């Protein structure tokens, strides 16, 4: 039922009353943690969108300088992409309750995310050693800030990843909970890949 149909209901009418009495109470048939994840991602989208708007707005000023994009960024992008692919594989296997194989891909996915973070820090080092400091120009400041925020979000994901890795090696665990956590974290991973792609496109386009 669409939100408009819901809002058009007249709860005081007997005809509506009969339908309402049978209502389960839930608005969505999927898990609550998934609803929470969607809400959280909406909020992060608002956050990054505002940063992007600020970025584009600031570009219009005359002092904007173009930041060179080190080739390492392409490699980092590929690493994050692989991390996302491995997470998806881990998710698919855990959906089939094949946790023995899933754990391999789960660990690899997290390690690749760590490689990505190390790669990003290495890019920072390259840029600062070439004299592109955070306070040199607004475009540099935006680059450091946005990549830093992206890393912080990824680190948050790695906390959940660490929990999942610990759980998957335990004997007596709730497999359905673990499956749900891996599934949600995989979505978060893909989302952060999408954010990075958008950010990277913005950087190379400007």
């Amino acid at each position, binding site marked *: 039922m669409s939100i408009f149909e*819901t809002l058009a209901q007249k709860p*005081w009418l007997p005809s509506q009353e009969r339908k309402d009495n049978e209502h*389960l109470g839930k608005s969505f048939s999927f898990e*609550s943690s998934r609803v929470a994840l969607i809400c959280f991602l909406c909020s992060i989208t608002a956050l990054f969108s505002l940063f992007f708007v600020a970025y584009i707005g*600031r570009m219009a000023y005359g002092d904007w300088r173009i930041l060179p994009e080190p080739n390492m960024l392409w490699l980092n992008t590929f690493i994050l992409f692989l991390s996302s692919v491995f997470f998806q594989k881990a998710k698919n296997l855990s959906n089939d309750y094949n946790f023995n194989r899933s754990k391999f891909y789960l660990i690899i996915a997290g390690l690749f995310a760590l490689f990505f973070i190390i790669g990003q820090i290495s890019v920072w080092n390259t840029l600062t050693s070439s004299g592109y400091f955070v306070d040199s120009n607004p475009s540099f*400041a935006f680059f450091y800030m946005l990549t830093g925020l992206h890393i912080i979000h990824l680190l948050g994901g790695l906390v959940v990843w660490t929990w999942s890795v610990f759980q998957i090696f335990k004997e007596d665990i709730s497999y359905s909970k673990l499956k749900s956590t891996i599934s949600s974290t995989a979505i978060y991973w893909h989302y952060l890949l999408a954010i990075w792609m958008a950010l990277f496109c913005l950087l190379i386009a400007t």
Partner: protein
Amino acid sequence: MSDAIIPEREVEEQELYHAKSWWTEKVFSQDAKIIAIQYFCTATAIALIGLVLSWFMRMQIAFPGISIISEGQYYQAITMHGMIMVVYFLTALFLGGFGNYLIPLMVGARDMVFPYLNMVSYWTFLLACIILVASFFTPGGPTGAGWTLYPPQAILGGTPGQESGIILMLVSLAIFIIGFTMGGLNYIVTVLQARTRGMTLMRMPLSIWGIFTATVLAMFAFPALLVSAIMMILDKTLMTSFFMPALVEMGEQLSYGGGSPILFQHLFWFFGHPEVYIVALPAFGIVSDVLSVHARKNIFGYRMMVWAIVAIGALSFIVWAHHMYVSGMHPYFGFFFATTTLIIAVPTAIKVYNWVLTLWKGNITLTVPMLFCISFIITFLNGGLTGLFLGNVIVDVPLSDTYFVVAHFHMVMGIAPVQVVFAAIYHWYPLMTGRMYNETLGRLHFWFTFLGSYLIYFPMHYLGLIGVPRRYYEMGQTEALYTQSAADLNIFITLTALITGFAQIFFFINIFWSKKYGASAERNPWKANSLEWRTPDQPPGHGNFAAELPVVYRWPYDFNVPGAKDDYIPQDVPNSDVELADGFEGTEIKAEET
């Protein structure tokens, strides 16, 4: 949306966390009701700091010759007063306090969906408060940049607290937002996913609609504040130039250059205007429920009320620049925002009409909660109408930065929501404590608060109309521009503010005294319909409801239904169990086809 049909009486149960020690039961509790009380206490404590700061400001304004506080302290007081009252008091109280207490009880859930996250949310909020208050004790003191924290002056020398106060403020706000996000996810998901059987969205009490919509707004609006806080922290600490233009300070060229202070204003008000409704929407919802119960009438135009809440929420994101009419914006830009601002008045006016029409021919009992609700309508109407003046660019420009603005926003989002806070606390006090409040103290509190706050803010409109500017430590020689009545009015306002502030002691004595010595509250003393009054214990115990969750058969506004013996039918009573009035035996209870 799911329309799945489930077998009779089967209600999905959620796993409930049970505390294992005194600490996890009373302090690090995961029970939403305890967390709500923690929010109430913390928000009230910090509001008292905000209140005392306002007294210092008023004393300075009324008696500038005495110089009770210095210029710097004056600006620190206005800054901290504003930020504390808007964010740390009202937002936290309505969403953290009433959200936590009311959502699970009113939708028929045992607790929030993520109780652990809920607990962490409160402690994060407390940390944010501690960091904010800590800035009073740092070198240079708290920031005096004004509650809007406009750059460049917010982080430049000469502004009080630019050493560390501004950083602590920004860090505190960032932590507050992180904490709120954890709580907000809980409020949204609990409303969407943990309602009991039969509780459709359109059967929810308007309090829940208000809190729910306000939370959705906050999830989209707070990121804007977070963005501006992060960028300003970087401007201050790493000398970036997001908001900072090229500047000369004390004859010295600073390393900043090319930043846009206006960008900050856009970001801040993209948060700031929805923030008004983050505070107002829960108040709208609560006042609707309290009015309906104490007038023994169904709320007039329930659907319209829900639509108005949703419409106001959506529109609140496209009116932000009406706070920036004097920032030099393009006239067409101002025209657009003036238009959207006037459009938002339509759903708001619908709500006011509907409250009045709910009272029309109602069986009104002037209890203390009802008195506060009626005074809310009057105050909000006043503040809303002056909003129409300020929403028009051409009228706003001469009134900008005068006391007219101070009067407007205090009426509409200061005093009005606070009156709802009091209405709500008196209304749900018997549920929260199991005892009744003292009626005499409650009425004394009401009359002092209502008349006092009106006498404080109504004359400010006059001050604004004659051009008295806000934010001035003292008028100095410009005092000659104003009539003596302006100075006299300022003294009057200050004295009234002191008396009204001290009169809040009636409230505190009442809630503490009544908690111990108040008369035991009978079950459901207001004869309300919503589920929070249908718990087996009063106050409700852990898990809220009995072994089985209640099943909902109706909306919460079935008052004075024709044919029913009682003048109310609780939500969990099916038609077959409704006791019929004499002469209606053998008939079936049916709502009116309106």
